[in-house]
């Protein structure tokens, strides 16, 4: 007996709840934009410059004591957060100390780091510093720009590719679904003020890559069905395609999530933010390829009259043979 995530021959009417789902998506995107504008993002040092020091100690972390030790150095904004992780040893206590970029200084001075480390050592002699990272304001400014270009660049590249391989309506549908995924991720990061650094941008691009993968599979089937059932209304073709690919969509999301959850729980705290972003992205990406991308294609309509064209599909790869 085989396990089935989805029974054979499903016939869900995905568009029956279209108003609710699509409406919810629009509201969520708008809410995300508002959250981003109002609350902003908790940028890591990659994007706003500064220094982070990771501390590791056998003694319990007392954030207030750490703060009191660093305060007299007059370094401006200092954030101290304790880090918890199931992979830590019994007596391992880790914290992250973040210090803002010092005025007019492109690079952090060795004295500053030495002073902070000495101050923390007076609080806790057993403390060690497994990592120290600092980024100057000049580089962080450039990193923001590069990150924005990277995300926009990938969106444009995908629109162009889908446009060439499918119809332009599909390209718009796909890219709006991607914008939806990226916006919701940024919204969530803004809402919970999770640290937003270069790794999260890499995660955003991965989400874009995964979500488009999902969307394309549905579109590919829709393209095939549009030819197979020339008289069927577009809404039914899209629904049929979504049903036919549903099992695959959930299977792939399932295996991917399985691997990611293992990484999320066991992979350590250093990449937790990154892995969490991708995990979240897989969930919204799967949702958006079922509920967002198709709705937009439906709204835009698709040209059905292919009678004059020789070969309507992009199946030029069909003759590839193993």
């Amino acid at each position, binding site marked *: 007996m085989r396990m089935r995530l989805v029974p054979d021959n499903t016939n869900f009417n995905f568009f029956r709840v279209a108003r609710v789902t699509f409406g919810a998506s629009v509201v969520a995107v708008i809410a995300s934009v508002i959250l981003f504008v109002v609350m902003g993002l908790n940028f890591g040092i990659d994007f706003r410059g500064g220094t982070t020091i990771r501390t590791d100690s056998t003694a319990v972390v007392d954030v207030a004591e750490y703060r009191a030790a660093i305060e007299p150095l007059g370094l401006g904004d200092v954030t101290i957060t304790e880090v918890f992780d199931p992979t830590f040893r019994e007596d391992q206590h880790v914290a992250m100390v973040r210090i803002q970029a010092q005025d007019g200084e492109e690079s952090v001075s060795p004295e500053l780091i030495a002073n902070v480390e000495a101050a923390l050592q007076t609080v806790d002699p057993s403390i060690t510093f497994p990592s120290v990272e600092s*980024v100057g304001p000049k580089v962080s400014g450039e990193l923001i720009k590069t990150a924005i270009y990277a995300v926009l660049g990938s969106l444009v590249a995908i629109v162009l590719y889908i446009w060439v391989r499918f119809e332009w309506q599909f390209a718009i549908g796909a890219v709006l679904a991607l914008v939806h995924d990226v916006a919701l991720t940024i919204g969530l990061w803004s809402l919970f003020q999770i640290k937003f650094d270069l790794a999260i941008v*890499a995660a955003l691009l991965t989400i874009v890559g995964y979500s488009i993968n999902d969307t394309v599979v549905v*579109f590919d089937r829709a393209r095939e069905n549009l030819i197979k059932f020339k008289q069927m209304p577009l809404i039914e073709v899209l629904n049929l395609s979504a049903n036919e690919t549903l099992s695959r969509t959930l299977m792939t999301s399932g295996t991917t999530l399985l691997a990611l959850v293992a990484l999320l729980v066991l992979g350590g705290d250093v990449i937790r933010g990154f892995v969490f972003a991708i995990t979240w992205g897989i969930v919204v990406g799967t949702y958006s390829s079922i509920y967002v991308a198709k709705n937009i294609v439906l709204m835009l309509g698709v040209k059905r009259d292919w009678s004059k064209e020789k070969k309507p599909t992009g199946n030029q790869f069909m003759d590839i043979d193993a």
Partner: protein
Amino acid sequence: MLQISIFKQALIVLTCVVGLLLAMPNLFYSRVEQHNDAVTAIEAGASDPALEEATGLWPSFLPSGIVNLGLDLRGGAHLLAEVQVADVYASTLDGMWTQVRDVLVSERDTVGFVTREESDDGLLRVKISNVDAMDRALELVRGLAQPVVTLTGAGQSNIVVSGEGDLITIDLSEAEKMASDERTVLQSLEIIRRRIDAAGTREPSIQRQGEDRILIQVPGAKSAQELKGWIGTTAQLTFQPVVGRTSNPDENPGAGNEILPDAEQEGVYYVLERTPVVTGETLTNAQPAFDQNGRPAVSFQFNPTGARAFGDYTAENIGAPFAIVLDNEVLSAPTIQAHIAGGSGIITGNFTVESSTNLAVLLRAGALPTELTFLEERTIGPELGQDSVDAGKIAALVGMGGVIVFMVLTYGLFGVFANIALLLNVALIFGALSVLGATLTLPGIAGIVLTIGMAVDANVLVFERIREELKVAKGPARAIELGYERALSAILDANVTTFMTAAILWLVGSGPVRGFATTLGLGIVTSVFTAIFVTRLLIVWWFQRRRPKSIEV
């Protein structure tokens, strides 16, 4: 039906075998690493029984390429330095002063007295007393211009000369500035490399980034601060004539002179002639040594040009003091006791054994042409890296185990085929990483785990399609064939788009992020290969042997 030519079968099997062979050394990581280190050492000329033994740890006929671990996994220091290229312009112009003076003085009858004006903007300004001869003076100075030797700046001269009233202003041309920037960065790159090599670390990576930046990554460095200590100082050594001593740093030193502080005593300043007698560039050797009182010092040796200049100067100036200046601080200002021929000497100062050794290293490697500003620095401790490797390994194994069970539960025997392909897929990624000499980073491990999850996608697409085709069946063989055929366009479109984002990530990212893009991109390529070739081959083999009347997917 369901045929794959023998030739293709051989090719697929061969690819897998080669991939597995290339990936294998990574299973014996530390063993192979020791072997490789020993081989490199022996090639460099070292010989020692321990090294010979280390080479025996891994048979030489097997591939020995292993995945490089990134700084975040191995621990080490990372620095991004910006070379202050513009600071070089002023000293280049400074060096032209003697030429300009000589050419003008040779026609003193026409141009009158020649004096240099102080300027803050780094330009060279020269005053002549006979304003009427301005045109002639400009002509003379312009005669000094040299063509710029670069591809883009060809045909342009290196200086721009303008005259106003009795003042001649000399600046570098844009083409010369660009050429100068290029030289400065390349020179800095070379010197940083020499200094880090002198410190004796393994596999440092020193790369140019963009126009004027240098990225330095040194696995095994204790901290970015230590790394900065190795490369941080410019180590610009000069020997300059002393005009006088003062306690006022703001005193007017007079034209052609400068005031520099003493390295040890606070409040002591020296007035020095700006043009040095000799510079550190003429040094051929420097060694840590001890002076006659047994205190640490640095002994040095000039090349013939330096030796002659130094010898001539000391012969003419016995009894006068001269200053040994390092990075704009006077280390010492001894009085010349006798003519120093032979071109060697000793630098004393407030050294410890360590700092004299350090200075000797810096002097030997040569001076940096200009200062460096550090824009980004990261230190990762080796324990943190090891923790990450361990956590990543466990997570990858657990994730893979989960996916394998899931696939078997869902697709039965076909799931087993997909799982074999999945394992091969991971091996192929490691094989490819080893051959490419790519670096595995922590996000890179995440990329592999993500690939493990996504790699089955292409198989899932095919299997789902086969299920569908079975319903309208014309026999299992036909269903399998159609399943592969019809799923292909979806597989290609889906993976091309994902690959594009991985490529963009690789192009714009650096360090860990680039490591992620590498494994993700490779994972996409290998997973498409294993899904449409390997699983298919496995299914065909199985089918030909069993000839089942019906199949269940």
